[in-house]
């Protein structure tokens, strides 16, 4: 058995944390882009598109993230596409994130009075103009706090990528545990690193919520 000092453990965990951060950022940015597309589809007024969006959201909110990961990982390789654990995790988490963000943003856009859409139409604004000039600037203010709040779920979700073999913080923790047999210490460290990543996001979300609630 190799001896690991506490510093060795922490250093290795922090190195693996880079991958947790990279995966979180990829999933969040990808999820936000797909979510924007889905939100636009939902607002387009075409019922076929709205059904697709609703089905998509329902599907990803109604199944475990772990199943989504497995389905992407095993499904794509069954189609003959050789996919790495990183790519599978990034795709699955992007889908997961986009479904939740679409639902969050739906709530935010729905809080705006419908009359604004009608007023914009009367003034001769196109759909795109109404969306980008009238609705979005207001919706973004309302959406900021819950969106940042959801980013905590994304960071926590990346922990599941460890199960399909992607070496991020949680996987590094289990590997170090297998080498040192000090589960109490190692998983406590892992938990604290996640906490250090997530808590500032939670705080920011709470602060923003208070600020915008006060402003209204």
């Amino acid at each position: 058995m190799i001896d690991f000092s506490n510093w060795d453990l922490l250093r290795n965990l922090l190195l693996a944390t880079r991958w947790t951060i990279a995966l979180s950022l990829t999933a969040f940015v990808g999820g936000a882009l797909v979510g924007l597309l889905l939100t636009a589809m939902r607002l387009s007024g075409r019922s076929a598109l709205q059904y697709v969006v609703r089905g998509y959201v329902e599907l990803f909110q109604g199944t475990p993230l772990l199943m989504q990961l497995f389905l992407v990982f095993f499904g794509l390789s069954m189609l003959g596409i050789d996919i790495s654990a990183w790519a599978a995790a990034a795709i699955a988490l992007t889908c997961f994130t986009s479904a939740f963000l679409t639902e969050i943003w739906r709530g935010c856009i729905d809080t705006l009075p419908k009359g604004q859409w009608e007023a914009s139409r009367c003034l001769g604004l196109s759909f795109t103009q109404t969306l980008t000039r009238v609705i979005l600037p207001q919706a973004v203010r309302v959406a900021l706090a819950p969106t940042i709040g959801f980013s905590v779920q994304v960071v926590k979700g990346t922990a599941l990528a460890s199960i399909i073999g992607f070496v991020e913080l949680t996987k590094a923790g289990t590997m170090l545990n297998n080498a040192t047999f000090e589960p109490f210490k190692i998983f406590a460290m892992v938990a604290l690193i996640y906490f250090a990543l997530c808590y500032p996001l939670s705080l920011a979300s709470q602060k923003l919520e208070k600020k915008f609630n006060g402003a209204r």
Partner: protein
Amino acid sequence: MLNFSDLLPYTDLLLQGLGVTVLLTLYSTLGGVAIGTACAAGRHYGGKKTRWVIGSYVELIRNTPFIVQLFFIFFGLPAIGLKLTAWEAGLLAMLINLGAYSTEIIRAGLAATPKGQVEAARVLGLSSRQIFFRVILNPAFEKIYPALTSQCIIVMLGSAVVSQISVMDLTYAANLIQSRNFRSFEAYLVVAGMYLLLAILMRQVFEWVGRRVFRHRRTAA
């Protein structure tokens, strides 16, 4: 290419797994909401120290992944002498997790009770116990019922992770099946479908219960 007939011999295994998932969800929903109610009351009415302890518990759980909590309980606690079976560890992790989230949700409900109602109840001679359960808790639950029930569904979906410590839930059944017949995509697809149905069913049941429990209020309003 897809071949679902290979799954048929494992129907029993899948149903057993489903049973375990349902049971875990049921226990953790009941226990988690009880923990949440107690902690929310503690955080709302307790002294500074109580509030701090409960606040730290809530934030610690809400800002760490469920799988790490699970590993800490299952692998970490035996190291300090607390040995748990996989089932116990899985259930404990779910209880602690839902307890923290429901504390936060229920607290929001408690905070939303207008002060005047409590004062009115006191004037009418209700005891503090009656005031808490009838005047504060009941309307609070009605307000936060949708948020609380969706959190229960989220915990059900999150329970898929307990398969990683060999609790024989639905996901464990899928893992076992695909390791035997190599039909991984089909197995996971079917199991994902079962989770989806379970989630939809849970929502229906919660809505039905909500309509029954809070009926008198709806008609009064």
